[in-house]
């Protein structure tokens, strides 16, 4: 990074952190600390709702996803607008009827204390697991920029965020979110414009669409499922994929995505807390409508940037590294000095990249109604080969010098003979580096001052997502659990002190989780997967409260545990895409609560 980039980076970061710390003096009670005194304007709460979800992960993970897998991931969000309306109509009235600080307080009045505590505990577990992954995202960027160890970066990000969240409370969270949201959208729009200028300038708008579509990157809405077998496969079997295996299509996105987002925005304290900071129920609803309208277009933009990056790298291979992880790339360059096989593989990679660029330009220049089949086939083969070689190079990269020498000769032979099976075997040994695609682009292509601003925006975005989760974890612990364990009455000042201590402890725990959950696979998918294990049951219990007058008392606990059991049984025994876990969990809650009610459990104990 240039000195000007460092200056912009440092100034932006200092401004955000200082503003967070400044809010320390505004909090005089738990209601101020966890609900901002119910004085946050709806538009700020709405931007905070978006920012909490659209964090550094959105920028790093989703652009990488667009680059590698295309735009199909947007389908996971198809149910979101419907979920927002459902939260506004069904859950907001329940939450805003009472002066609650956590969503789970509602459950005590509707069912009983064990149900409230079980739901709150479920939230604590799921969010604590996800928190570690959220802290990892900016750490990847910083590790890339500063050429440092990811673990060191996780510790710095985790501790810095913990410090100002502990002091500032939810007001600091919301107002830093507003700043980061503006910075992130601004930064992304600039990148979008820059990439459009570069790509469309070389192959035209129509040519870019043809090339991206031919590489299967433009499946924004797959209305026809690729697999129509409606019987789910047993886990671990080698049967052909069924309808339920498809991660993203219209059905999983609309139905599974609806339940995922209904649960996330309606039953996850990290989002409900934002809703509780507004003055009235309608202000809360307006805050949610911002996401309902803007989220899907924003995801399209972020994934679109990923696809444009793919095109940019394909058109200008000399401006893209063979692998995007700089540590792996550095290691490969060092290894190539002594391993002649690797040198030949790198040369092969360059040749195939040039071929991909040539085929892409041919395809883009094509003006007829139907694309020539051999040209299409040659292009797709080159796209596949570059992708496989990237994975193979990652598998062979050895930054620590601890691996056995990779079979580069075998790789060359597999490509010479066109042995697809062998190529796939080599490729499967490598991890991904898609989370490095966007940072690598920012650092190598953009002007210095903008590099500083975008990296600062990513960093601030990550911190604002982490602080939202920290603040809500603290709220659930202090409001839901603390009075159960420590029954002595306390003053507001004492409660505030306990709240801050708890936020601090969660920050430490989250940082530790981040270190132990390190992985190279797509961050955003991991978060949604972790959420999907628990969200269905969480949502189910709130829906049970709203729609099932027959379910009372301890029936709630039976429902939650039953819903969880259904999800885990599905995970263990059936091969089903994770979005469906949300539906299964919610239905499981109703089923088990109904069974408990039929047995008279709720009546006897309640």
């Amino acid at each position, binding site marked *: 990074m240039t000195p000007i980039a460092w200056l912009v980076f440092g100034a932006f970061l200092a401004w955000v952190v200082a503003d967070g710390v400044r809010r320390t003096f505004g909090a005089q009670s738990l209601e101020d600390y966890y609900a901002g005194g119910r004085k946050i304007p709806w538009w700020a709460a709405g931007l905070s709702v978006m920012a909490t979800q659209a964090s550094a992960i959105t920028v790093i993970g989703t652009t990488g996803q667009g680059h590698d897998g295309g735009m199909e991931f947007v389908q996971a969000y198809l149910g979101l607008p*419907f979920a927002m309306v459902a939260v506004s109509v069904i859950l907001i009235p329940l939450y805003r009827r009472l002066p609650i600080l956590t969503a789970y307080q509602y459950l005590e009045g509707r069912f009983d204390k064990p149900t409230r505590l079980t739901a709150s505990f479920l939230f604590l577990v799921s969010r604590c697991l996800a928190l570690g992954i959220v802290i990892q995202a900016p750490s990847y960027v910083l590790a890339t920029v500063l050429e440092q160890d990811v673990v060191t970066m996780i510790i710095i990000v985790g501790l810095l965020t913990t410090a100002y969240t502990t002091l500032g409370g939810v007001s600091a969270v919301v107002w830093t979110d507003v700043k980061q949201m503006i910075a992130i959208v601004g930064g992304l729009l600039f990148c979008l414009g820059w990439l459009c200028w570069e790509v469309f300038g070389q192959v035209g708008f129509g040519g870019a669409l*043809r090339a991206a*579509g031919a590489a299967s990157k*433009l499946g*924004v*809405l797959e209305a026809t499922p690729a697999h129509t077998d409606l019987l789910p496969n047993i886990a671990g079997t080698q049967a052909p994929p069924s309808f339920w295996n498809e991660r993203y299509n219209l059905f999983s996105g609309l139905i599974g995505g609806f339940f995922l987002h209904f649960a996330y925005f309606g039953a996850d304290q990290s989002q409900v807390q934002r809703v509780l900071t507004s003055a009235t129920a309608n202000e809360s609803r307006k805050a949610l409508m911002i996401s*309902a309208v803007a989220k899907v277009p924003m995801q399209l933009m972020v994934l679109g940037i990923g696809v444009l990056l793919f095109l940019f790298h394909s058109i200008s291979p000399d401006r893209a590294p063979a692998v995007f992880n700089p540590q792996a790339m550095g290691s490969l360059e060092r290894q190539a000095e002594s391993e002649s096989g690797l040198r030949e593989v790198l040369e092969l990679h360059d040749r195939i990249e040039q071929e991909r660029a040539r085929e892409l330009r041919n395809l883009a220049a094509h003006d007829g109604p139907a*694309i020539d089949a051999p040209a299409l086939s040659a292009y797709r083969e080159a796209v596949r080969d570059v992708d496989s070689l990237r994975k193979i190079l990652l598998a062979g990269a050895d930054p620590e010098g601890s691996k056995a020498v990779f079979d580069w000769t075998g790789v060359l032979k597999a490509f010479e003979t066109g042995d697809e099976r062998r190529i796939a075997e080599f490729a499967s040994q490598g991890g991904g580096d898609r989370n490095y695609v966007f940072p690598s682009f920012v650092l190598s292509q953009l002007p210095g001052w903008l590099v500083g601003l975008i990296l600062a925006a990513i960093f601030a975005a990550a911190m604002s997502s982490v602080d939202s989760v920290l603040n809500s974890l603290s709220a659930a612990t202090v409001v839901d659990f603390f009075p159960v364990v420590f029954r002595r009455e306390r003053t507001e000042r004492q409660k505030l002190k306990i709240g801050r201590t708890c936020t601090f402890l969660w920050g430490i725990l989250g940082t530790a989780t981040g270190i132990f959950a390190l992985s190279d696979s797509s961050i955003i998918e991991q978060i949604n997967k972790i959420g999907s294990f628990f969200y269905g049951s969480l949502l189910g219990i709130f829906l049970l409260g709203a729609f099932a007058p027959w379910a009372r008392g301890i029936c709630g606990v039976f429902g939650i545990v039953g819903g969880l059991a259904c999800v885990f049984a599905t995970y263990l025994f059936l091969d089903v895409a994770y979005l469906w876990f949300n539906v299964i969990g919610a239905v499981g809650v109703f089923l088990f609560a109904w069974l408990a009610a039929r047995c008279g459990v709720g009546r006897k104990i309640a």
Partner: protein
Amino acid sequence: MEESRDHSSTEPDLSARTYLLVLGLAVVLYLLMGWFTAVFQVRENG
């Protein structure tokens, strides 16, 4: 628990028209996305 002091219980809900507008926009966007995919996406076996 005491009633909220935020008057939410007496405040009229956001109108159904607002929700319909939001959902209508979503449906139009999805139709466009479906059309876009049908025109430009080449499937793995396509």
